[in-house]
């Protein structure tokens, strides 16, 4: 509690949690505020618009707030986590609005007992959001099965099928994992029209596992296993699966559109499988359309059975910028490498942030050209956060020196990182003899890669927009060079560097204290003197005398002149 009370946000969330706790029946503002105040020890704020509600009986809940500010009601779902555990789960999560949006949508369906379908572009964070929601509600160690649909998905994968007898569960899992890997691709390519059972037997043989011929046992499919264990099952890439496979999920449409709690297995003499509490299914897919070709449409009946959530196609530009800035923050950067890192960016946050600006600007250029240009349309590279993470790793660990070897050339370093992580993966050089079509594609794609790198050179050049940097208008290259020079100088004058950091820290603290004071004034005004000690209580929880004094001083400064008189 002491940690959150330093920040004004938790109190704002408390006001919202009141709605989640159905306090609307309390008509008087003072009654409601007193109730909220009395509950605040057990209601805490987490990042991503999540409130934690502790209950004395141990049945904790999470309140997920939608995008759009304080006026909207949250959705409350139970969690097995404590506040500290929930905080640990969210510790390394980038606070992107898309993630918050996915969490809220999943929570809404979960609370209503329905099956959500997330439709959106690759790299948007659908799978990440699902895994995060699962960890937040069921704990990070809870089992989560993710089934990836493909063109050859069959209902036996879901409900079960006969398998050769005499195999342990571990052996079956090893064979299935082997089949799902690149080895399975080679097996299927080798076998031509080989059946699924053939591939299974051949995979078993490759792994030296003996399969008894002519003897079979029933093996439950993923849905049945999830039902029997009360677990969440994630069906990914639903639109990749053929319609017959998709329609198998229709039987899970229960009463009032909720997820059915039982099903019949015709393959097992019509036996009824009843789900344990906790069973749920979540679907995700890329929407069929111009960008995602080779996808099957979802039939209208199944769409009615699901909570359909149409998300964006790509991460918003602001999210890309914010995510890149986060990745280049000292606490998120990876450690240096012995032979590739000269300037450890963790010690030079300003330089890291300037690099982040260049990387995100190029990333957005790349995404636009690859996704919308006529040539780029043939590319299936969907640039996402993984690519940004790779770039941050490369910039930190593989730095290029200047021509004279006296410093680091960060422009060249970034250029090489984006080339390695993004541009090199473009389809080019497909010089198949005799194929004029591919030769043509080769030329076009080469020009795409070249155009992208030319765009990078333009981006860091001095001919485009200049940025205000310490009172001067400079190009990005000049700013990077100036900050690199400072990084080298800081090795020579560590105590000066320490002073600068202390001054920056003091300025940050001052800004935070001013925000707290401003916030408490608003709360004071809202309470109209009903709880006169409220602001003082919050101030009392601040961690230092200086901070407490400063907030009080700021509050006095903000007094309305009329009130003061």
């Amino acid at each position, binding site marked *: 509690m002491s940690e959150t009370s330093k920040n004004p946000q938790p109190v704002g969330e408390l006001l919202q949690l009141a709605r989640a706790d159905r306090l609307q029946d309390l008509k008087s503002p003072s009654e409601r505020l007193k109730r909220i105040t009395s509950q605040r020890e057990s209601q805490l704020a987490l990042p991503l618009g999540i409130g934690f509600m502790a209950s004395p009986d141990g049945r904790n809940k999470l309140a997920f707030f939608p995008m759009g500010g304080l006026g909207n009601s949250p959705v409350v779902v139970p969690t097995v986590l404590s506040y500290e555990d929930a905080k640990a789960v969210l510790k390394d999560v980038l606070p992107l609005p898309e993630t918050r949006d996915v969490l809220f949508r999943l929570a809404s369906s979960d609370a209503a007992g329905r099956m959500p379908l997330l439709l959106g572009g690759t790299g948007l964070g659908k799978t990440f959001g699902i895994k995060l929601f699962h960890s937040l509600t069921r704990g990070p160690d809870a089992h989560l099965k993710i089934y990836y649909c*493909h063109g050859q998905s069959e209902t036996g994968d879901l409900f079960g099928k006969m398998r050769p007898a005499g195999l342990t569960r571990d052996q079956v899992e090893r064979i299935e994992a082997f089949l799902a890997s*690149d*080895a*399975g691709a080679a097996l299927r390519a080798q076998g031509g029209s080989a059946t699924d059972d053939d591939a299974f037997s051949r995979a078993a043989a490759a792994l030296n596992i003996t399969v008894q011929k002519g003897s079979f046992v029933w093996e439950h499919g993923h849905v049945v296993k999830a039902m029997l264990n009360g677990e969440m099952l994630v069906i990914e890439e639903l639109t990749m699966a053929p319609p017959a496979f998709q329609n198998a999920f229709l039987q899970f449409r229960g009463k009032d559109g909720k997820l059915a709690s039982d099903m019949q297995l015709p393959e097992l003499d019509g036996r009824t499988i009843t789900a344990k509490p906790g069973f749920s299914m979540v679907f995700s897919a890329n929407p069929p359309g111009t960008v995602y070709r080779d996808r099957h449409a979802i039939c209208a009946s199944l769409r009615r059975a699901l909570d359909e959530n149409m998300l964006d196609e790509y991460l918003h530009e602001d999210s890309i910028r914010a995510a890149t800035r986060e990745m280049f923050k000292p606490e998120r950067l990876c450690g240096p490498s012995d032979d590739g890192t000269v300037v450890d960016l963790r010690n030079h946050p300003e330089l890291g942030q300037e690099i982040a600006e260049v990387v995100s600007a190029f990333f957005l250029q790349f995404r636009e050209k690859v996704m919308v240009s006529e040539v780029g349309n043939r590319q*299936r590279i969907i640039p996402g956060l993984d690519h940004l993470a790779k770039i941050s790793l490369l910039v930190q660990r593989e730095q290029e020196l200047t021509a004279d070897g006296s410093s680091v050339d960060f422009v060249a370093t970034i250029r090489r990182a984006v080339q390695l992580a993004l541009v090199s*993966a473009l389809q080019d050089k497909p*010089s*198949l003899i005799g194929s004029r079509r591919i030769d043509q594609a*080769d030329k076009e794609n080469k020009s795409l890669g070249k155009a992208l790198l030319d765009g990078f050179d333009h981006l860091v050049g001095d001919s485009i927009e200049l940025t205000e940097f310490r009172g001067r208008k400079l190009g990005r290259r000049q700013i990077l060079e100036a900050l690199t020079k400072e990084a080298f100088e800081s090795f020579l004058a560590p105590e000066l560097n320490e002073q600068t950091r202390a001054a920056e820290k003091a300025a940050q603290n001052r800004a935070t204290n001013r925000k707290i004071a401003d916030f408490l004034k608003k709360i004071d005004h809202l309470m109209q003197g009903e709880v006169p000690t409220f602001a003082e209580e919050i101030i009392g929880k601040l961690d230092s005398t200086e901070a407490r004094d400063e907030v009080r001083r700021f509050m006095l400064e903000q007094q309305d002149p009329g009130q003061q008189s």
Partner: protein
Amino acid sequence: MANSDSGTFFSDAASGGLGKLGRLALVVEDSGMSMAAARLRQLVPTVCVSSLGEIVEALAAHELGSLPPADEGQDRDASSAGLLIGLDISTIPHDQVELFAGNLLYSRASGTVYVMTPAQFGLFDPGLFDYVVR
């Protein structure tokens, strides 16, 4: 891309420094003459395969931990941990590579570095590879 780039990259990859590893492509004109391919063989157990059946055998041997370690300088612990395997597919006929590339769309990447020619690389969906080193 300079060979030194790929050298550093594979060192990181072999030690797990790159975190989540998927599928990597090393695109070279002649794998026998390539410095990058030679560096890969030093760092990662690399098998030359000439047919799809040999890909299955190599991956099964890797899975079973019976693959011999890399040429030299390879930390045996790193190779036995099953982090990476190199597959030199540059001599597999085009028609077989085309079939393989089509089926690879339905597979989960699992720390495999493919050494291939530029012509072969053109047969793959480029989205299949997390890193491409030239």
